[in-house]
């Protein structure tokens, strides 16, 4: 499997008036192969969304990236984010389909803008192309959707239309930022099935950002667990979830109410994610970790392979 996306030691620092104010990403490394679905999981503030934005070249102003992002063999230039890469090679689906579309234009008009910009198709050709993809994502009446305004469609239909829009330029990689979080469970399930089917059909890679381990379990081939701006554990989904090695991954799993009998207390992870990561020099999880030893407060562990393809960033990995 050739690597479609390589993120190597990506650091993002927020600057204010030239001075570093926070460092939300502290050396993220991950890869996605052709046709592979990588789940990026973690809690609020761990850097999931920012990682997605960095891959898309959409970092907010004042964010200074360091490291390497290689997309389909092409090294990305942080100083000149290319709109051409966006759409053609990598495309984005947002969390909330209701606000991702402009309410005053029809779905068709908004999709036409995308495709005419990237492909230069004429109006009639563009329409055919769009209807084709609206049908591909399982919308029952593509023609009606094409003419609809966003408020005339349900959340699930909008998310399908959003996915169709992301597919228009036949991207190699799709970044999905919590695409099912705002949807009801029954609809969310359909969307997950759709993503898997489209992946099988088109063979694109997926960077799937979510906080829901259950969703990762159902959909993703591999997963990367983020904590405080760093990948703390990554590997094949089944392996990581069956036999988690990092204390944070274990903590996330043990906190799930589905894994505990009613009435007995849940194993909560005490404390909260550190707000500012500028001053972190040791393991950022040590303060919340029940396995922490003195060395944990001195050494900043890097992601190391424990077994083939299963990496853990914990100095006590293997012994706990």
């Amino acid at each position, binding site marked *: 499997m050739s690597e479609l996306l390589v993120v190597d030691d990506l650091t993002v620092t927020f600057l204010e008036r030239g001075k570093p104010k926070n460092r939300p990403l502290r050396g993220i490394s991950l890869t996605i192969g052709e046709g592979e679905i990588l789940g990026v999981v973690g*809690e*609020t503030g761990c850097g999931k969304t920012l990682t997605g934005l960095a891959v898309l070249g959409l970092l907010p102003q004042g964010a200074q990236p360091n490291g390497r992002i290689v997309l389909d063999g092409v090294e990305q230039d942080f100083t000149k984010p290319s709109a051409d890469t966006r759409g053609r090679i990598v495309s984005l689906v947002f969390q909330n389909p209701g606000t991702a579309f402009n309410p005053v234009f029809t779905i068709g008009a908004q999709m036409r803008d995308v495709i005419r910009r990237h492909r230069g198709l004429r109006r009639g050709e563009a329409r055919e192309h769009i209807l084709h993809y609206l049908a591909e994502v399982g919308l029952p009446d593509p023609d009606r959707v094409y003419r609809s305004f966003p408020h005339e469609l349900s959340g699930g239909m909008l998310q399908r239309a959003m996915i169709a829009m992301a597919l228009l330029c036949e991207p190699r990689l799709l970044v999905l930022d919590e695409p099912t979080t705002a949807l*009801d*469970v*029954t609809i*969310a*399930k359909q969307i*997950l099935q759709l993503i898997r089917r489209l992946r099988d059909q088109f063979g694109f890679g997926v960077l799937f950002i979510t*906080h*829901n*381990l*259950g*969703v*990762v*379990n*159902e959909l993703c081939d591999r997963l990367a667990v983020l904590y405080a701006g760093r990948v703390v554990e990554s590997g094949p989904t089944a392996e990581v*979830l*069956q*036999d*988690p090695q990092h204390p944070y991954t*274990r*903590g*996330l*799993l*043990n*906190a*799930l*109410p*589905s*894994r*505990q009998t*009613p*009435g007995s*207390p*849940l*194993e*909560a*992870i*005490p*404390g*909260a994610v550190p707000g500012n990561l500028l001053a972190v020099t040791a393991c950022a999880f040590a303060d919340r970790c*029940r396995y922490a030893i003195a060395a944990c407060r001195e050494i900043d562990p890097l992601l190391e392979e424990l077994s083939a393809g299963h990496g853990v960033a914990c100095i006590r990995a293997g012994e706990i």
Partner: protein
Amino acid sequence: MSALIAVQNLVKIYRAHRQEVRAVDDVSFEIEEGTTFGLVGESGSGKSTIARCALGLIPLNSGEARFDGRRITGLTERAMRPVRAEMGMVFQNPVAALNPRMTVRDSIAEPLLTHTTVRGRALDDRVGQLLEEVGLDAGFATRLPHQLSGGQSQRVGIARALATRPRLLVLDEPTSALDVSVQAQVLNLLQELRAQYGLTYLMISHDLDVIRYLCDTVGVMRRGQLVESGSAAQVLTSPRHEYTKQLIDAMPEAPGAKPRGADTIPTKLRRTTQ
């Protein structure tokens, strides 16, 4: 034991664009004192509307709600006030449920100012005591909502709901805006408070796992109707209604491994302050 809260044939109709929407359509249920009733359903199923009808926050089209045997439907706001001291409500979006310009102290003191004559030093002491009960230290009293994390805000929201020592807490998706690790802290806190004060909960959630974990009895809502209700064990393991089955099927399968190292849970884990 008797029903602390009972609603009968609740109907709530909204009119929008000349269309009638039956947000709540002939719903009846009772909650025994000291038990937890979970209302589960998808968005727009009417579960939040029911909670607000039951608390008398929005007028009904027909039906009635009783609290501890007293009819509370149709009471004026003034007549309702003493009943409100016996109820508390916890909201889905914990930060938005706090007035952004009021300190934690002022937010928690509000029910006490409304329902009691506690003032001055005694009021501050009571606020400090409530903060401690929800696992926050007294230093939080002077903070403003934007200086709190989601989990801390929800603890403040719970402290406020508990201030007048109510018998019933209505929990409207209390953890759906929180991360799993924080959700676990809040669920633990809710369990502990329930045990300590014999509280009755009306819990609203779309998350079957949370409902299964916390509730004794469950009602499943769909398009304004209560399609199935019964003990949590029965409804969630052997559902009778087709829709309940669909809901359960749609839940993503939880990661399979047995909880690891869950044997030694420090009892004071939830007293997490920072």
